[in-house]
């Protein structure tokens, strides 16, 4: 019986790992730790009750919440795949940091109270920052600094919200103010998120803190900024945990909050727009994380059982195929040292395994039937249709086509086919191939045998009839139609895409061709505005802060920062004495 949070195996193991050197012992251990964690997740008894005392609080670090099993399982599995892929990487701190990061993510899913959750949330921020820094380049160092700044500020906002919320509950006489409550802010939709009264600021602060980690624009530009700067293996780890833990927390606290439907739609569109404009292959995939997480956030906003199941299943499937895609891109980067689409091409001659794995990942992310993406994403669309939510359904469907364009076709086409770049790299070392093959297998296996996944969803089937039947004829036909038509569109537009890739993409023209007028008149101004706001908040603040902290000449001009002379100090002392005397006599 497991009587401790399974994630601690990874977190504590991460501390031992550096002591084992770089030899086979350490490698074996690094594969064993995630497997032990996975086993431990499944060995936690259903009625587990563990409490830790901290200050005057009872923390509960080991609790089954509805979505815990599906998230904890995929996080442990992902840690294994990532470790396998990273087996040959030479950097000393990257893997321990990644394990601390992954282990904290598992711990978040088992947290039974909001403070435990917050503590591991912050530990994730630390671990992931070190993973970014392990990229080792000057760009990685700078991106990591921006990354950690955003996450610490987000953490402070979240902490403020949690404190305000807990104390408000305590003042209201609620027995256990720190407990995690399902749908805490959800079912009332906008009602819970109102600005009426000062106490109601708490849900907003919490929501903002979580949305920072979910990479929702305009708070989410850290993702595409930092992830591609990490190492080949680092990016694989990064893609899995931060955004999906945010999805988990949203699902627990904010399920059914209508605002999230719109946030999710914005993310889905934003991710596609930027992915299509991008030339760096890993940045394309980073933007498509935003797009995919948008589907999940949207599902959480819809908030029905079907939608929440879909969001959880999609998180599961997404982690696998996104990691697979990034492994494929990472292998290319590892073997060629190039990361721009325009520098690559024609690699299918010499990297067949990498190519096939990349294509399987691309099909899965495009929700091609008989892959994992199909059995999960269609649940969200179905939930939108069941709820008669026409606009979300439309946007999700359009975004599905968009995903196929940028991640499904653009990535493999420009990297593996297209023109011949003259590069002749081999497939990567065995461990990288093994990791890709494992995840490629999982993508297909989940697409065909989806029942084990459906069994661990937050709301498993209760009666004899199946939870959801993805392979109805109409589903398959409509999805294939969508994919084939957008595939056709891609190749028709290819001359334009190609030409513009070498110069600049003519953004407006492209979008007018796709969504006539819609983009330019409605969406782009909003996105621009949000991007500007984000620039203002993060870049300008940092710039101003830097200018202020380094301008010593400026400092000398501001009297309050000048060194006081002894005489003025005495005058000030006397003045304070007078204040006390006067207050004393007048009170």
């Amino acid at each position, binding site marked *: 019986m497991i009587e401790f949070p399974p994630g601690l195996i990874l977190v504590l193991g991460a501390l031992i790992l550096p002591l084992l050197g770089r030899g086979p012992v350490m490698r074996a251990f690094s594969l064993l730790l995630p497997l032990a964690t996975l086993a431990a997740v499944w060995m936690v008894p259903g009625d587990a009750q563990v409490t830790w*005392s*901290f*200050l*005057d609080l009872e923390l509960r670090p080991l609790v089954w919440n509805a979505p815990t099993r599906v998230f904890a399982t995929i996080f442990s599995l992902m840690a294994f795949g990532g470790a396998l892929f990273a087996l040959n990487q030479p950097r000393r701190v990257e893997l321990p940091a990644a394990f601390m990061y992954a282990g904290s993510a598992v711990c978040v899913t088992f947290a039974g109270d909001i403070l435990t959750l*917050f*503590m591991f949330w*912050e530990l994730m921020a630390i671990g992931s920052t070190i993973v970014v820094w392990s990229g080792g380049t000057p760009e990685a*160092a700078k991106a990591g*600094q921006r990354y950690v700044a955003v996450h*610490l*500020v987000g953490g*402070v906002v979240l902490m*403020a919200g949690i*404190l305000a919320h807990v*104390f408000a509950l305590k003042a209201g006489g609620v027995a256990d103010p720190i407990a995690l409550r399902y749908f805490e802010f959800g079912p009332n939709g906008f009602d819970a998120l109102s600005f009426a009264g*000062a106490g109601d600021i708490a849900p907003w602060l919490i929501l903002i803190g979580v949305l920072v980690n979910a990479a929702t624009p305009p708070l989410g530009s850290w993702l595409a900024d930092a992830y591609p700067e990490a190492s080949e293996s680092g990016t694989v780890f990064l893609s899995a945990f931060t955004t999906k833990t945010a999805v988990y927390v949203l699902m627990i606290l904010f399920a059914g909050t209508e605002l999230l439907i719109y946030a999710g739609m914005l993310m889905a569109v934003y991710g596609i727009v930027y992915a299509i404009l991008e030339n760096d292959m890993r940045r394309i995939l980073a933007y498509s994380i935003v797009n995919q997480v948008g589907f999940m956030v949207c599902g959480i906003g819809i908030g029905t059982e079907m939608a929440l199941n879909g969001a959880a299943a999609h998180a599961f499937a997404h982690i696998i195929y996104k990691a697979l895609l990034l492994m494929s891109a990472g292998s290319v980067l590892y073997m060629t040292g190039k990361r721009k689409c325009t520098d690559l091409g024609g690699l299918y001659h010499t990297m067949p395994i990498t190519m096939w794995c990349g294509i399987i990942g691309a099909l899965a992310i495009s929700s091609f039937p008989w892959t994992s993406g199909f059995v999960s994403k269609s649940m969200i669309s179905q939930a939108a249709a069941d709820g008669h939510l026409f606009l979300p359904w439309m946007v999700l469907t359009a975004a599905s086509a968009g995903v196929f364009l940028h991640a499904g076709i653009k990535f493999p086409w420009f990297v593996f086919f297209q023109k011949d770049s003259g590069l002749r790299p081999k497939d990567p070392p065995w461990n990288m191939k093994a990791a890709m093959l494992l995840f490629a297998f999982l993508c297909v296996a989940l697409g065909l045998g989806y029942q084990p996944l459906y069994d661990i969803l937050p709301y498993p089937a209760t009666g004899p009839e199946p939870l959801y039947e993805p392979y109805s004829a109409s589903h398959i036909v409509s999805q294939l139609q969508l994919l084939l038509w957008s595939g056709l569109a891609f190749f028709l537009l290819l001359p334009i895409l190609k030409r513009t890739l070498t110069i600049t993409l003519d953004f407006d023209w492209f979008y007018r061709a796709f969504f006539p007028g819609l983009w330019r008149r409605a969406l782009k101004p909003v996105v621009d505005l949000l991007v500007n706001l984000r620039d203002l908040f993060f870049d300008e603040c940092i710039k101003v*802060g830097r200018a*202020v*902290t*380094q*301008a*010593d000449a400026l*400092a000398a001009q501001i009297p*309050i*920062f000048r*060194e*006081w002379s*002894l005489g003025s*100090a*005495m005058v*000030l*002392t006397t003045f*304070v*004495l007078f*204040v*006390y*005397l006067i*207050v*004393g*006599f007048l*009170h």
Partner: protein
Amino acid sequence: MLEIQAHLPVLVVVVPLIGGVLTSLMGRGALPWAWATLVTGATFALTLRLMATLLASGAPHISYEVGNWPRWWGIEYRVDLLNAFILLVVAGVGFITTIYAKESVADEIPRDRHNLFYTVWVLAICGLLGITVTGDAFNVYVLLEISSLTVYALIAMGKDRNRKALTASLRYLILGSVGASFILLGIGYLMMVTGTLNMEDMREQLLRTPDLDHHRTVLVAFAFLLVGLSLKMALYPLHMWLPKAYTYAPSAVTALLAATATKVAVYMSFRFLFGIFGPEFSFQRLPSHLILLAGACLGVVFSSLSAIRQQSVKRLLAYSSVGQIAYIVAGFSLANENGVAASIIHIFNHAVTKGGMFMAVGAVALRVGGTDLKHMRGLGRRMPLTMAALTVGGLGLVGFPLTAGFISKWYLIKGALDAGMWGLIAIVLLGSILALVYVWKIIEAVYFHEPEDPRARDATEAPIMMLVPMWTLIGLSLYFGVDANFTSDTALRAAKSLLGGAP
């Protein structure tokens, strides 16, 4: 054995007093240091014993009449949970910094003055312990003078590294003397009204005084005391002596001062505000808490802003100390249980955190020869343990969860909520962000730059005699960040008794 047990309260002062004077006879070798370590170690053991005795007796306090004179004529030493805790902190940090001082002092102070240095050093610790243990108002002043004069001398000993230590010391001497004489005036006025110097007696007499609220002499005494105490504990804007003093003092002295001197001044304020005047007079009838709170809020913001713009790490940390003192003052000026407890906890937490950080800076001074940010560049790879201590301590200043700083802020925020002061919470959060900025400046220099200074390029890790004390303090700050039961229980109990008006 029984004898020692009975005389513990006075031994805490007598042992370092005599031991300190004897240090001057110890010649020039390592002997003065060894002797000082022995004396401070013995003193620490005595304070541990004292705490154990107090807890075992179950009595609210232990009273000791020096020379068996009745307390209203002679001097009473009086130990309750609060000052037993502060004694433990001061003696413990004193002992650990004495161990640390060996390498640092050998490097920074000429050899022929080592015996004098350690004499003054032990006497300073003696004075601080005496202020804490005594229950006699005039004795407070006498011991305050002992600790102040010795500290002025200690700061001036930094002159061999930088002549500015002399002006820094002079500056502190002038402002400190003003503060001390204000305190003396306040005590004098109180004696005029009450006819006694024993603190408990003063309290009883004041309670009997008719129309206390409008008693001019009491009000003047209150004003002088509060200003004097604010000066000694460096409450913004009366902190003007502190940055220079901390910057130019020898490294070991800075570590000792940052961890103990201002904290004892805060303890004195507890005694006067809660013990003698009583919380009702100090905080309900007079709006003095608003003045204190204003000073504290300004202190958190402006001293953090000042810290951000420093290029010298010692001065940066000195300004950060002003900000941290402001948190302590903000806590007790709320005059509720959680707020006062936050102050008491933070006295301990900040002592270990900042003490450990100044030790790390001292190690840099030893290895690189300077303590500016430019000297720190690139040291992350060359002095990994020292820089890790500095980083962990820095996270404690920010109030990161799992560090001791988080616990203090937690109680402070609780106290502010109890008092309904949302503005203070905003200030605390703002202070944390500003602290993050200045701590980040250090982290950036340490880990993200290549060394500039030629000596930094081939610097090696600090000697073990520095690393052990440094990590002891930083380790304590981590331990009490995770398991805060001892500190928070003690602080809550002490806060309860303070608010109950116990002297």
